[in-house]
């Protein structure tokens, strides 16, 4: 597989910066996932985590001059799109039935 990426103007930015940003985004995603109460916000936090991972994929792809990471990030986007479709449908149904989006009030699935 012989192809090279064209040089980018941001090439000067070091690898570590991408990883640190990715980690910060991922940490924010986790925090939102754990601490927010609105279902939609929780959902967006998940998307944030997915995209944090995507960022590190792309960064490594660039660093290593291989396309694998970018291909993976497309996979993640496809999965995220599918998840958004299903997840939003679930959220809509929950709201229709209970008129609330508070995660703590959606607790009927228990023993």
């Amino acid at each position, binding site marked *: 597989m012989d192809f090279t990426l064209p040089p980018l103007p941001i090439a000067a930015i070091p690898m570590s910066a991408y990883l640190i940003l990715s980690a910060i985004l991922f940490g924010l995603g986790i925090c939102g996932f*754990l601490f927010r109460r609105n279902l939609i916000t929780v959902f967006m936090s998940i998307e944030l985590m997915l995209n944090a991972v995507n960022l590190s994929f792309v960064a490594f792809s660039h660093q290593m001059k291989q396309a694998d990471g970018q291909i993976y990030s497309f996979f993640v986007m496809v999965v995220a799109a599918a998840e958004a479709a299903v997840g939003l449908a679930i959220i809509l149904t929950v709201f229709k039935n209970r008129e609330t989006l508070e*995660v*703590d009030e959606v607790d009927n699935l*228990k023993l």
Partner: protein
Amino acid sequence: MAESQQLWLIPALPLLGFLINSTVGRKMSKQFVSFIAIASVVASFLWVAKTLNALGALEQPHVEHYFTWIASGTFSVGFDFSIDRLTSIMLLVVTGIGSLIHIYATGYMAHEGGYYRFFAYLNLFMFFMLILVLAANFLLLFVGWEGVGLCSYLLIGFYFLEKFAGDAGKKAFIVNRVGDFGFSLAMFLVFINFGSLDFGTVFGKAATLQPEHSAGMITAICLLLLVGAAGKSAQIPLYVWLPDAMAGPTPVSALIHAATMVTAGVYMVCRSSSLFNNAPIAMETVAIVGTATAFFAATMGLAQNDIKKVFAYSTVSQLGYMFLGAGVGAYSAGIFHVVTHAFFKALLFLGAGSVIMACHHEQDMRWYGGLRKKIPVTFGTLCCAWVAIAGIPPFSGYHSKDAILLAAYEHARPLFWIGALTAAMTAFYVSRAMFLTFFGEYRGPNPHADHGHGGHDDHAHGDDHAAHGHADHAHKDHGHGHGHQEIKESPAVMTIPLVILALLSLGGGFFNIPDWLEPVLGSSHAEHDPTAVAVLYATFILGIGLAYVMYVLSPGLPDKLASTFKGLHTLIYNKYFVDEVYDVTIIHPITEGSRYFLWKGVDAGLIDGAVNGAGSVSRWIGGGLRQLQGGNIRSYATWVVAGAVFVVVAMSVWGGVR
């Protein structure tokens, strides 16, 4: 090999009869059921006759191989039948007597419920008995052996609504299991030692065995075979089931528990004679067991009041003679006695059945008396059996019993003397039964006879009819109100078999069976020692004379004697309390042990405890784990994150990814 004689037809015909009667017999008329049952057995008898006629002198065994039944490694068992001279005799006895008893039974059972069931079982019995006799290897013999045991159980418990009949059936079955256990072990040892279960192979190897080699093993095999034979042929200590087996209908007693099945043990011992010849210790044991059984059973027979019980103990005693014959090496004399005993004991039982029927199902001899004018044919035929079993020359019992006792005389004097004493007792108890039944004045009917015979009667009660949809056949002509009916002779269908058996009992001794069997079982010609012969003449004169004095001349004498020797009489009357002793030493420990150890200890404690324990541990763990699933989504999320963190930490600490 000679051309095939289609031996399989011999057992297959009764099997066919069984299949027809057991499937459609219930809806068919009694005539149809009787026809199928009798025709199948008579056809089998005719096929035996034709086969034996075609085979001629049978110098060599005629073996037919049908298919390989079991093949596993070096173990191979074929479905093989064979006929040699021993088999030929057994075949004739089984099918011949079987036919007569089937014919008789159509008369005897005419008013009983479960008619088709009775004849189906009887045909099934014939099938298994013929398999047993024809089998060419131990395993196939065992199939027949177990099969006749099953039929015996079914027919003893024929009146299964009576508790005693069911109990007697179970007793027979369980006691036989003890014997079968010994037989199975013997088969295993035979296979280990000879590498085969085929009679031809095993006995061929046994005949060429060096005595010093494996003497202990052969003795063990023979002793275990003896255990098996003792179970089936009712020898000490396993005889206890046979007297109780009289709970079955009388034709069953005659066919299974006198003439055929109980002689299977003798047949098996004689069949294995080349093994026993290599095991002198086992031979001695057989002789001693036989003598002891003959003696003790005869003493028990002295004081019984139930006519069938007398003949039952007599059967046990006569089987003891057969074992004595086999044990002293006179196998052919033993088989000779099997044959003559089949004649006269079948006759005794069938005659007893005729008497019982005439007296409206009264079996207690104390309520008989003076019947000889009322049922003359039964009386005449029973007299033939009487002279045969008592050993009066030249009738059949004399020839066979004396062949055995003379062989015992040469072999061991004590066995002869005990045997002779037993012969005197035999003559006595049969004469007693005859005198009580046919002589003197009619003493009946039994005033207490309202179905309260303490478990010895032979009724089919109304319940039995109803249970089988034969309520319309309710027994109008017997049962209640015994005293008001006259005593009349049995129908011809019953008396004709009696007459044929009577002729056989009288003349059966002239069949020269020991000579015919000599190539198979060896010679058993004993010197006719004058002393021994004189003693044997003395025995029957003594026995019959004593019975005549006690039961005809001075009828008060037996009671006086009984009160004089009160202890002895009680002991004999209660059959030495053997049943009670078994009850205390074996049955009670087993039932109590089962209840308190196996049931309450092992089952309820250990097994149930383990199962319940597994259940409650799961419940306990589950109770803890269900706290995790609280329905709170953010707590789930926390667990997910915590898990992920744990995985990452673990991988960095223990080094999944560098």
